[in-house]
C-alpha cells in the first residue's frame, strides 16, 4: 500500500511531473529514432543527473527507458526498422499494416497494448518486490553468489546467437571489472603500474563508450553501406482511427503478453526482445486468425508490444532486491543509485523504502505520459524523426560522448576509457559478441567476487559450501539448466536447418 502515498507525493510535485513528461517525450523520440537506443540516451544523460536529487535523476532515466521501449514500435511500424531490438517482433505485422494505409491504427494498438503491458508489469512489481526483498534479506553469501552465477550464465548463454561468444563477453566484462585495487586486500590487479588503472574502470565512461560512441561508429558503418531509400507509406483517415470493436480481439493478446513479459522480466538478462517474440509466437499459436499474422494483423502488434513493455517493471525487481540488474538500463540505473550513495540490495527496502515506491509511482505516471503523447502524437513524433538530419545528429552525439565522459568525474582518464570502450563496443557488435552480457557482467562482477570470497572464508569445506546449501545448489543448477536448454534449442534449430536443406 506504500504506492498510494508515493503516488500522491509525486503528483503534488510539479517539477517532478514536468521531468516525467519530458522524459516520456525524450524516450519516445530516442526509441523511435532508428539506431538510437534508450540505453545510449540514458548513458549520455547520466553525468547530467549527478547534479539532480536522487529521485529526480532516477525517475528521469527510468521513464526514458520505459518510453524508449515503446518508442521503438513507432520506427518498426512506420519505417520497417525497429528502433529497438525489442520492437523487431512488432515490425512483423506493424509494417504491413502501415503499407496498407493503417499506420495510425497500428500505432494506436501499439500504444494501448504498451500501456496495458507496462502497467501490468509495474503492478506486479509493486505487489511482489517486497516479498522478494524479504526473502533476499535471509540469503547468505553462498546463496547470493549462486544467484550471481546463475545470472552470469543466463545472461551469457541466452542472449545472442552464440553461447560461446555470449559467455566470453560475460567473462570479458568480469575481467574489466577486476582492474584496480582488490576491495578486500587492496592488492593491485591488472594495473600494470599505472596509477589511473589502480582506481579501476569507471561504470559511466564504459557505458558512454559502449552505448554512445559505439553507436556512432556503428551508424557510420551503416551510412557507408546504406543503399536505397525508405518507401513512403499510404495513409487514409479510416486507417488512423481505432474503434473498440477493432481493439477488442487484441485485448487477450495484450493481457497474455503482459504476463509473459512480466515473467521474463524478473529473470536477469532475458530482456524485452525475447519476451516480445515469445508473446508473438504464443499469440499466433492461440489466434483465431493465424493465417493473417505476419500480413498485417492488429493482434500481431498487440501481443509483442504488451510483452516488451511489461518487462520494464519486473526487471527492476532483481536490481532493487539483490543488486542484480536484469538489463542494460538496469545496469545504468544501478550506477545512478551508487553515485547518489544509495546501496542497492535487500536493505534498500529498510533504508530508502519511500524513494523506491516514489520511483515506482514515477514509472506509472511515465506510462500514462507516454501513453497520452503516443496515442495523440505518435504520427507527429514520426514526422519529427524524419526531419532529424542524422548527418548532424550523430556528430553531435559523438562530441557529447566526450564531454559527458569527462563531466562524470572531471577525469581525462575516463575520456580515454570511453574512447577505447567505444571502439571495443563496435568491434564486439561487428563480430557478434554480446555487449549487454559484457556490461551487465561488469556491473555484477564486484558483488559476485565479494560474496564468493566471503563464502570461502566462512566455509570449512571450501567451494563445497555452494553444493551443501540447498538454495545455492538450486541456483547453480538453474544456471546450468538454462545453458543446457539453450544448447538443446540451438542443436534443434541446426537439425531443422540441415533437414530443410536436405529436402531441398
Amino acid at each position, binding site marked *: 500500500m506504500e504506492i498510494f502515498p508515493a503516488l500522491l507525493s509525486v503528483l503534488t510535485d510539479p517539477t517532478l511531473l514536468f521531468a516525467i513528461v519530458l522524459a516520456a517525450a525524450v524516450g519516445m523520440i530516442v526509441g523511435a529514432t532508428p539506431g538510437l537506443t534508450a540505453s545510449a540516451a540514458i548513458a549520455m544523460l547520466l553525468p547530467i543527473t549527478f547534479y539532480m536529487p536522487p529521485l529526480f535523476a532516477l525517475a528521469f532515466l527510468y521513464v526514458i527507458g520505459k518510453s524508449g521501449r515503446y518508442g521503438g514500435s513507432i520506427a518498426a511500424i512506420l519505417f520497417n526498422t525497429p528502433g529497438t531490438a525489442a520492437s523487431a517482433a512488432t515490425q512483423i505485422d506493424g509494417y504491413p499494416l502501415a503499407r496498407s494505409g493503417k499506420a495510425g491504427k497500428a500505432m494506436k494498438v501499439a500504444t494501448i497494448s504498451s500501456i496495458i503491458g507496462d502497467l501490468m508489469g509495474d503492478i506486479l512489481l509493486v505487489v511482489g518486490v517486497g516479498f522478494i526483498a524479504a526473502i533476499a534479506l535471509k540469503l547468505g553469501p553462498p546463496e547470493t553468489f549462486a544467484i550471481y552465477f546463475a545470472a552470469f550464465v543466463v545472461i551469457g548463454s541466452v542472449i545472442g546467437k552464440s553461447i560461446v561468444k555470449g559467455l566470453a563477453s560475460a567473462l570479458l566484462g568480469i575481467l574489466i571489472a577486476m582492474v584496480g585495487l*582488490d576491495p578486500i586486500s587492496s*592488492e593491485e*590487479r591488472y594495473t600494470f603500474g599505472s596509477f589511473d588503472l589502480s582506481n579501476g574502470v569507471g561504470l559511466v565512461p564504459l557505458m558512454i563508450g559502449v552505448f554512445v560512441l559505439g553507436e556512432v561508429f556503428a551508424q*557510420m558503418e551503416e551510412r*557507408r553501406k546504406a543503399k536505397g531509400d525508405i518507401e513512403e507509406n499510404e495513409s487514409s483517415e479510416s486507417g488512423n482511427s481505432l474503434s473498440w470493436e477493432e481493439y477488442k480481439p487484441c485485448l487477450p493478446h495484450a493481457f497474455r503478453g503482459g504476463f509473459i513479459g512480466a515473467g521474463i522480466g524478473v529473470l536477469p538478462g532475458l530482456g524485452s526482445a525475447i519476451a516480445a517474440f515469445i508473446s508473438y509466437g504464443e499469440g499466433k499459436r492461440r489466434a483465431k486468425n493465424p493465417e493473417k499474422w505476419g500480413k498485417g494483423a492488429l493482434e500481431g502488434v498487440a501481443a509483442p508490444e504488451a510483452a516488451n513493455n511489461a518487462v520494464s517493471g519486473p526487471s527492476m525487481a532483481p536490481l532493487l532486491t539483490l543488486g542484480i540488474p536484469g538489463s542494460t538500463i538496469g545496469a545504468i540505473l544501478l550506477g545512478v543509485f551508487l553515485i547518489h550513495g544509495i546501496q542497492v540490495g535487500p536493505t534498500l527496502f529498510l533504508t530508502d523504502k519511500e524513494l523506491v515506491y516514489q520511483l515506482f509511482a514515477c514509472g506509472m505516471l511515465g506510462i500514462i505520459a507516454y501513453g497520452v503523447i503516443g496515442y495523440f502524437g505518435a504520427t507527429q513524433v514520426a514526422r519529427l524523426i524524419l526531419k532529424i538530419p542524422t548527418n548532424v545528429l550523430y*556528430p553531435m552525439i559523438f562530441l*557529447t560522448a566526450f564531454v559527458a565522459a569527462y563531466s562524470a568525474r572531471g577525469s581525462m582518464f575516463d575520456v580515454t576509457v570511453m574512447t577505447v570502450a567505444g*571502439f571495443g563496443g563496435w568491434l564486439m557488435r561487428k563480430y557478434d559478441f554480446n555487449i549487454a552480457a559484457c556490461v551487465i557482467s561488469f556491473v555484477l*562482477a564486484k558483488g559476485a567476487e565479494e560474496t564468493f570470497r566471503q563464502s570461502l572464508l566462512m566455509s570449512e569445506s571450501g567451494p563445497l559450501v555452494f553444493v551443501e546449501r540447498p538454495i545455492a545448489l538450486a541456483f547453480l543448477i538453474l544456471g546450468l539448466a538454462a545453458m543446457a536448454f539453450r544448447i538443446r534449442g540451438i542443436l534443434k534449430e541446426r537439425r531443422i536447418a540441415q533437414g530443410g536443406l536436405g529436402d531441398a
Partner: protein
Amino acid sequence: MRAYAEGLVLAGLAIVALWGAWQVPAASPGDTWAGIVPFAAALALLVLSIFLLLGATPQPVDAPEESDNAATFGIVGLFLIALLYQQSFRWFGYVLPTAITAPVVLYLFGVRNWIGLTVSVVLCPLVFHVIFFELLGVFPPYGEVFDLLDWIKG
C-alpha cells in the same frame, strides 16, 4: 577463417589475463587470494577460446565488398580522430580541439554545407562549454600547451 581469428584473439586476451592474475601476490593467512576470480575468469575465457577454435571450420575467404572496406576505413579513421581529440584536451583544453573536431566529424558524416561547417567551429564548443562547464559547473580540462579559453578570458 573469421572464427579462427576470433578464437586466437580471445586466446591471446585470456593468456594476458592469466599472466596478469598470476602477478597478484599470494594471500595472507586467513584471507583469500585476490587473484582467484580474475584467474578463474581468464581460465574460463581460455577454455571458451579453445571451443571457438575447435568449432571453426575452414571456409573459403570471400573477398570483402568495397563498401565493407570503405566502412571499416571510415570507422578506423573516426577512432583515430577520437583518440587524437581526447588526447588534445590534455594539450589544448576543451574549446580548441572541439572547434577543430566538430567540422571534421560533420564532414565525415556527409555534411558538405560550408556555412554549416563554419558555424559548427564556433557553435559546438560554445554550446557544450555553456551547458557543461558553465551551467553544470564542471571544471573544464586545462590545456598544458595552450588553452584558448584562458586566452579568450584574458
